[in-house]
């Protein structure tokens, strides 16, 4: 395959004018100087519009009575490519399985969203949220209660404008 070289058709230095170029540059920067439209987003006051498919901090869906929807089937720790989910399942008197320990290490997580895809009862979700700074490393391991407390919108894994992708 032939290498294509882009030839810049620049005028020969004997025929370029520094003065005119400098003055037109000054005019350009002055127009930008007085232009009131600025591109900076004033972040803490002005929040980013996240995509509905943004995969961020996890959240655990809860039943109306406050129990987690998770049935401790063990699919999410199995599918997790980063191995960041720790699940210890248990069973109550009625034979319902529930998680005794459910922890997600948000540091190890790569936010691929496969836990949400694989979950048979739509319990664990990735969410449209990214502000999870903490002062200690330990705080990045989210336990079950903390996952249930999260109240940000969950992620749609498909494009809402295209139903066929669902």
């Amino acid at each position, binding site marked *: *395959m*032939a*290498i294509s*070289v882009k*030839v*810049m*058709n*620049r005028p*020969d*230095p*004997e*025929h*370029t*004018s*520094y*003065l*005119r170029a*400098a003055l037109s*540059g*000054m005019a*350009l*920067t*002055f127009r*930008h*100087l*007085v*232009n009131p*439209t*600025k*591109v*900076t987003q*004033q972040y803490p006051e002005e929040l980013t519009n996240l995509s509905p498919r943004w995969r961020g901090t996890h959240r655990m869906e809860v039943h109306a009575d406050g129990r987690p929807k998770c049935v401790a089937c063990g699919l999410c720790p199995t599918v997790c490519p980063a191995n960041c989910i720790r699940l210890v399942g248990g069973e109550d008197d009625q034979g319902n399985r529930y998680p005794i320990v459910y922890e997600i290490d948000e540091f190890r997580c790569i936010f691929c969203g496969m836990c949400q895809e694989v979950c048979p009862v739509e319990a664990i979700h990735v969410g449209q949220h990214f502000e999870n700074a903490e002062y200690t490393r330990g705080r990045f391991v989210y336990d079950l209660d903390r996952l249930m407390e999260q109240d940000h919108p969950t992620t749609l894994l498909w494009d809402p404008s295209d139903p066929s992708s669902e």
Partner: protein
Amino acid sequence: MGSLQPISGPWALIAMSLKVTIIFGVVVVVVAFSTLAERRVAAWIQDRRGPNRVGPFGLLQPVADGIKNLLKEETLPATASKAFFVLAPMFVLVPSLVTFAVIPIAAPLPTPAGVVDMIIADIPIGILYVLAFSSLAVYGVVLGGWASNNKYAFLGGLRASAQMVSYEVALGLSLITVLMMSGNVTLTEVVWQQQQLGMWFVFPLSLAFILFVVSAFAETNRLPFDMPEAESELVTGYHTEYSAMKFSAFIISEFGHMVTASALMATLFLGGWDLPGTWDDAFWHEGQLISGFAQDGGAILANPAWWKTVLTFGGFAVKTSFFMLLYMWVRWTLPRFRYDQVMALGWKVMLPTALAYAMLVGGAILVLDELGVPWGFWYGLALTGVSGAATVGFMFFLDRGRTIIGAAGQSRQKVSIMSISQPAPAGD
């Protein structure tokens, strides 16, 4: 009007202390805020907002920067020449702040005890004092670069000295025309002669103004002439090894030089504190504060007032701010020159032009004096014509690639990208 005497006695001492404190304080505060202004202007030019978090509109940013720099760790390179390394920032900082002393900032202020001149030291050597002290600052830069024992810092210092020497020549020669016009080196007299001429020197000495502005940019090491710093080539040049408050001292002095140079340009070419009209004119002439001469040669006494002082100070501040803005505007527009281009511009363009222009203006003044044209509007207009023609000629000469071609253009070689042959398309 017995009160129209210069202030004297113990009151003079008090007035002097107040003036020194206030003017020095104002200069330091202006320097601090110009670091913020620089960042805001940079941001606006790049369609950003700039620092607006600390205090209202980011106005406390310089304070935050100052606290940060005071609390930072001082570094001292093990192989540095310690005494000079510590001395260098002081060598730079002091000249940049003391040069403001000879610049008149407003019309004289009348007080019950006498008239106070709005200038710290109206010394007879005036502009020479500024030149002497601004030249001293380069010693600090060279010393800092050398004492760091760092090759980049050393190259920065070396470049600074070469550049300062080169452009000081053009600066001095363009200044000569101003001194020929005003007939004296004190800046109060420069302002007075502009008031008498009825127009600011920027018109009758337009080419000198252009040369002076360009040389002043080079003298203050601002882009497009920031050879001594040149981040992309020399890390940060002469202050590479400096940190914390020592580094800050270099930055403060850079902005201090900018403020002084802006005030100087405003004084020399835009009439200093003079505002249009003759109502604010004032000058000490043979012990009397006069505002002009009558037709018969008699002096017209000036009528100073506090509101005139305030208004003229406002005018001076606006003119100085204009040059500060120009400094920042140019910095964020023009890319840095190559080193050989800086030298070529200094020695091959600025120096001969300044020399020829000084002779032209000298000749024009001689002719006008011989013809007996009185010092006034028509005198200025005639010189404006001469200078305008010289400026247009200079611009015409400069217009076609003579400043930036540098090495490639001077040998008349066709070094354009067109002459590099394209590789032939591969066969298969």
